């Protein structure tokens, strides 16, 4: 029997977390593809990582501080120029609360 790592319900839940929505057909296809990919990841369990520190950056810099100096920043019009909808100096979005 084929091993299952992720089912359709979990795919729908993860899609919601990622703010994506899929049709029934897409959900089927993603479930099967994600399952294959996650099964491939099982390889990682062959490796004994007892006591190994996780590496999240190959060259880790600590606290890259710079001086707290005010530099030129984008004018508001430039920041808003790409907005799908803007009003005054604000980005406009659909209603958030009733």
């Amino acid at each position, binding site marked *: 029997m084929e091993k299952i790592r*992720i089912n359709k319900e*979990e*795919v729908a839940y*993860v*899609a919601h*977390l*990622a*703010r*994506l*929505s*899929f049709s029934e057909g897409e959900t089927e296809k*993603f479930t099967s*593809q*994600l399952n*294959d*990919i*996650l099964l*491939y*990841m099982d*390889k*990682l*369990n*062959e*490796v004994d*990582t007892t006591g*190994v*520190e*996780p*590496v*999240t*950056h*190959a*060259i880790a*810099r600590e606290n*890259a501080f*710079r001086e707290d100096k005010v530099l030129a920043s*984008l004018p508001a019009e*430039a*920041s808003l*120029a*790409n*907005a*799908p*909808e803007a009003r005054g100096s604000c*980005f406009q*979005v*659909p*209603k*958030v609360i009733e």
Partner: protein
Amino acid sequence: MELYELSIHELQDKLREGETTSAEITASVFGRIDAVEKDVRAYITLMRETALAEAERADLAIRKGEMGALTGIPVALKDIFCTKGVRTTCGSRILNNFIPPYDATVVSKLRAAGAVCTGKTNMDEFAMGSSTETSFFGVTRNPWDLERIPGGSSGGSAAAVAAGECIAAFGSDTGGSIRQPAALCGVVGMKPTYGRVSRFGLIAFASSLDQIGPFTKDVEDCAILMNVIAGYDPRESTSVPEAVPDYRRFLGRGIEGWRVGIPKEYFVAGIDPEVEAAVRQAIRAVEGAGAKCMEVSLPHTDYCVAVYYVVAPAEASSNLARYDGVKYGFRSEGNRDLLEMYKKTRSAGFGAEVKRRIMIGTYALSSGYYDAYYRKASQVRGLIKRDFDEAFMTCDVILTPTSPTAAFRIGEKTDDPLQMYLSDIFTISANLAGIPGISVPCGYTESGLPIGVQFLAGHFQEGRLIQFASAFETHAKIERRRPRL
């Protein structure tokens, strides 16, 4: 020989001698674009008018005796670099109409050096792919065989250099996205050390892996471009404040007595026999140059792809959360509320591969799975890095194939994501370990497709890589062919 066929250093000699002008070079490049772009489709956006104006300005500067590091040289940019006032799409519908209000640091440096920008090249959407097939703007063709892919994700940049549609180009490399297309298109491509080049203004894919680098016709041009782009940037907190040498000083120095590690794990089942033969020939060439080759072991090689496809999607799922239809880019129509707008915008704006990776990443970081996937992968990443640290205690550089095969056919791997992922099997490890790598042409298959060999070195050893690649280029005497277009 046409001007568009020449290298940066050859053109610089001509410009210095007054034998040609930037206007002539730029016209030659755009003439070539007019002739072949309909077949290759390397560009998303051409910048003809501004390029011609930049060329005029460059000629003025040259006449005044003010020749900078790249004055008057036409270069192309992957459409992942923000360019002020020029649409920057990252190959995605979701940034279809995005016009950045600022230049990436690399772009500012190129402008300051006097370069002429020809346009923005095609790429896999958000740099997620190995074939430039996931672009919203269509597929780029390999100039050596138009039925085949150019590699990816920086396939447009590699194809543009190979086809003569620019003199050199820039790309980004998260798991091989410079080196693999360079190999498949028969050009030189370098991924510098993590932190060597500022990524300010580079659209983020996987922030612990992304790095910027050049595509060139030869190793000398690679050194010229590295001199322009390398260095610390106060606006990019992962760029490293480490002194940058003059990379040209490493050219032509020879590699007598160098120790070259050949990792046994990179010559295994799955590698194409013609690729293996060409790489074995490359080993003999460096031995002929006086280097000593020795077997080394990178025992965790087999886990690189699995680690990468946890770490990169995890970081991508976080980086791509910013595309929500609020501040810039595409927004879907007819939304009842904010949540619906997010979902509809992102579902219509992203292509299938990007969604797949966002899903893997979100899953791997989600409650209950974090330890099993992200933490585990980061631990194995530590072991992969340690493998390289140990190998570089016994050898100066490591030599491997760049890609297990030459260019594959368009559509061949699009239905099987895992097979596509495995085409990065030899390049991913350098990103995970943060080390620099370069791919240099080392031969051709029977059917005339280019093959690349990869050299890797320790952190901040780009100079050493250039020295080694330069010696290889001199001794291997690989026949200089041009794609028939």
